[in-house]
């Protein structure tokens, strides 16, 4: 079956800087795909190329099997939500949501129904007549979403739509966004630098680094099996720990071992480290330790020791890496 | 791709307009200044102008421009130094101060021709109140020049002051405080902080006003008529009175040459910093 949206070998440079480097992607219909990456590394550029606001230097954009690379945004049947929400300041909520329908020449009565439906879905029907300059950040975000929904486009593009919300509202907004996408069954492509957005919203995540997708997989895959060292250190509340396999007595003369803080059992085992500082993590603790002279790792455990003390730990689960690329994953029996 | 050229498409009406209504007539005027009914590329028009007082017109234009600019910039600096501070009634003063900018040049000419009248006039009655003797404001070349300079500066100082003010507001007050702490008095602060930072703005104001001074037309016409002669009034005089329109083209071209030379001068000076 045709992917809903496909990127083929997209390249884009600004001056001397190559921002997107032969990037390819296939997004399936009904999928919630999240593009995750550090700020300023081309995520927004990628989205704008999908939307048609910018043109790639090379490569093709296909939507619904059609080559749209040469088409302007208004001919691609996509909807987009910007980080700033881009609400038309001189109109009220209703007119903002109705605008795309007005542009398509949809008759007023039909449009009215669609606008009200969208408003109800996003629970903003009570402010439908307010000028958009007078509503809260969270409400603005929902108006932007309603405006995107109203047209039934092929693909929804969202550029950091949650970044401007404060933490509390953000959590609720995430839940709601996922709910809406599931309910509509539409294809969503969302760009963010926030891990939590990726882990809670995505069916699949594309981790963008240096102009390419370093890994594309489900949130669990990129968390448990990061395909490169960089991904392992980027994804997660805390970076994945990396130590030379020798230090942990795991044989192999070269290569590294990667493990998440919670993949260890603290208090037993043959590996040792010196505790440098402690941070509370729910019922347990993050233990920031030093291995030998040069390596720093974080362990998660119930034990609480004093700084300066030696801690013993044992790996229950780990990944082997050589040349920074994942070679195998392993579990050790307790 | 097509996208790249769209901005130029939007610019097209403006560019076409400018080409047809500005560059083409200018080129035509310069071209025709070298023509006579009998010959095609001669200097006889210019030679004729010299006989009719071209050098005088040039000197008058230069002198007037220099004097007017001096007055405008001096006053503008004072006023913008005032406007940069806070005081009661500031918005009223600002609104008041800008009014001359909106008053038509002819109206300014009207008022000042009644203020600076040959006999009587409001300036003379003012002088009388202070016990001073009356002046004949058109008795000499110097007085003529002064009259025009003052009238012109009345109308045009506000715009210079606004430009300088824009520049001054961009200088952070902390620099002044630091300098004051280091012992610099107000004059030294002005010379070493204000002026250097204003260079760009001064250049802009200088070009805009300087060129306008060269082009000054209505005020001399109303206040002094055709004598003392300026490049603009000379051009108009030939156009409206004599049979030879070519002389007016020649005078116009001389004016154009000075305008261009002046602008290039200011730009060059700016680049050297």
């Amino acid at each position, binding site marked *: 079956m045709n992917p809903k949206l496909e990127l083929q070998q997209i390249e884009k440079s600004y001056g001397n800087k190559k921002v997107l480097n032969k990037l390819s992607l296939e997004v399936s219909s009904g999928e919630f795909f999240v593009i995750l990456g550090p700020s300023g590394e081309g995520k927004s550029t990628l989205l*704008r190329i999908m*939307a*048609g606001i910018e043109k790639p230097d090379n490569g093709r954009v296909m939507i619904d099997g059609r080559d749209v690379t040469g088409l*302007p*945004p208004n001919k691609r049947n996509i909807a987009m939500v*910007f*980080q700033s929400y*881009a609400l038309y*300041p001189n109109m009220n909520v209703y007119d903002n949501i109705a*605008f795309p329908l007005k*542009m*398509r020449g949809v008759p007023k009565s039909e449009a009215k129904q669609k606008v009200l439906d969208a408003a109800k879905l996003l629970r903003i029907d009570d402010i439908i007549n307010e000028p958009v300059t007078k509503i809260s950040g969270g409400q603005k975000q929902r108006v932007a979403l309603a405006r995107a929904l109203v*047209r039934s486009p092929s693909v929804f593009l969202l550029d950091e739509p949650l970044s401007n919300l404060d933490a509390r509202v953000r959590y609720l907004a995430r839940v709601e966004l996922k709910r809406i996408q599931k309910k509509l069954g539409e294809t969503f492509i969302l760009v963010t630098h926030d891990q939590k957005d990726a882990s809670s919203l995505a069916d699949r995540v594309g981790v963008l680094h240096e102009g390419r997708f370093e890994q594309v997989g489900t949130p669990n895959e990129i968390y448990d099996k990061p395909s490169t060292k960089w991904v392992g250190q980027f994804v997660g509340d805390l970076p994945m720990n990396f130590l030379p396999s020798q230090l942990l007595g795991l044989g192999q003369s070269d290569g590294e071992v990667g493990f998440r803080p919670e993949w260890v059992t603290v208090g037993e085992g043959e590996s040792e480290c010196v505790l440098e500082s402690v941070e509370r993590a729910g019922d347990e603790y993050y233990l920031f330790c030093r291995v030998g002279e040069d390596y720093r790792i974080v362990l998660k455990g119930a034990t609480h020791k004093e700084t300066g003390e030696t801690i013993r730990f044992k790996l229950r689960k780990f990944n082997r890496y050589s040349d920074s690329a994942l070679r195998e994953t392993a579990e050790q029996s307790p | 791709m097509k996208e790249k050229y769209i*901005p130029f*498409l*939007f*610019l097209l*009406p*403006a*560019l076409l307009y*400018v080409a047809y*209504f500005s560059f083409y*007539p*200018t080129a035509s005027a310069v071209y025709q200044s070298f023509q006579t009914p009998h010959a095609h590329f001669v200097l006889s028009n210019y030679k004729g102008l010299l006989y009719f007082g071209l050098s005088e017109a040039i000197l008058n234009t230069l002198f007037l421009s220099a004097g007017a600019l001096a007055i405008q910039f001096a006053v503008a600096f*004072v*006023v913008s130094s*005032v406007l940069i501070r806070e*005081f009661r*009634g500031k918005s009223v003063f600002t609104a*008041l*101060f800008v*009014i001359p900018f*909106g*008053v*038509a040049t*002819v*109206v300014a*000419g*009207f*008022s000042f021709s*009644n*203020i600076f009248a040959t006999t*009587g006039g409001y300036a003379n*009655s003012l002088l*009388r*109140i202070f016990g001073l003797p009356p002046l004949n404001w058109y008795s000499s070349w110097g007085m003529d020049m002064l009259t025009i300079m003052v009238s012109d500066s*009345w109308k045009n100082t506000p715009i210079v002051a606004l430009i300088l003010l*824009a520049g001054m507001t961009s200088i952070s007050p902390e620099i002044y405080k630091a300098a004051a702490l280091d012992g610099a008095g107000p004059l030294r602060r002005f010379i070493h902080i204000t002026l250097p930072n204003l260079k760009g703005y001064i250049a802009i104001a200088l070009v805009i006003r300087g060129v306008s001074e060269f082009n000054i*037309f209505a005020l001399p016409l*109303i206040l002094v*008529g055709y004598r003392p002669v300026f490049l603009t009034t000379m*051009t*108009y005089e030939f156009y409206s009175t004599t049979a030879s329109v070519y002389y*007016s*083209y020649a005078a*116009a*071209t001389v*004016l*154009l040459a000075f305008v261009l030379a002046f*602008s290039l001068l200011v730009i060059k000076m700016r680049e050297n910093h």
Partner: protein
Amino acid sequence: MNNSKLSRTGLYIVIFLVSLAVIYPLYVLFLIAFSPVRYTLDARYPLQYPGGLTLTNLLTAFKGFNLVGPALRSIETAFLVGAIALVIGIPAAYGLSKLPRRQANTITTLLFLVNMLPAIVIAIPISAQFISAHLYNTVPGLALAQELVVLPLSVFLLLGAFDSIPRDLEYQARVDGAGLLRTVYLILVPLAKAGVVSTFLLAWMMSWDEFTFAVILSPINPTLPIVIYENITRGNILASSAFALILTLPVVVMTMLLQRYLKGEFLAGGLNG
């Protein structure tokens, strides 16, 4: 402490003197128009205060001279100039806002270069062309010529207005299905309303004041400035005072309104280059 008190008094002295200087010529206009002639023009030393107030001066002027004709002429021309400024200027400013900064600055500078070419250099060749194009002595003809004075500043102001609109809004409109033209005229222009209004008013005012093109291109049906000039040279001072009042009053009001808009646009707009 002594220093600041001294400078405070100095400040207020300057403010007082400048305010006086600004108002005086307008005050003289007021006196000549509304005071009986024996105190103003006929007096050897005109009174500095109103000797009396009368409307006879104005009434005589209105009866003896055609005030309505030139006033209408000026109004028509000014509105046309304002309209053309928007018709040409809005697309031009939009195009410039899409170009990289350096190219946009070059073109803007080019437009201001246009402003510097002396009006008298252009007006004379244009008058010849207009005669054959049946535009001589017409409102559209004069408006097209006066546009030269107005266009660079209009584009500059509109560019500032467009630049201040967040880019996302334009992208959003395109994504929402608006083609380029609808995006510009349904979304961007309404958001640039302050700039559009300021531009129209400024263009209107500059046309209202304009002299050089008017005197050369429309001498038979003159605009108000030309009529004032003619009456001054013929010695009809009272008539000119009446015309001058009609010319001035709307402008004084508009300048004060504009001043509020102008300061914001001027500082925020294209001075970033």
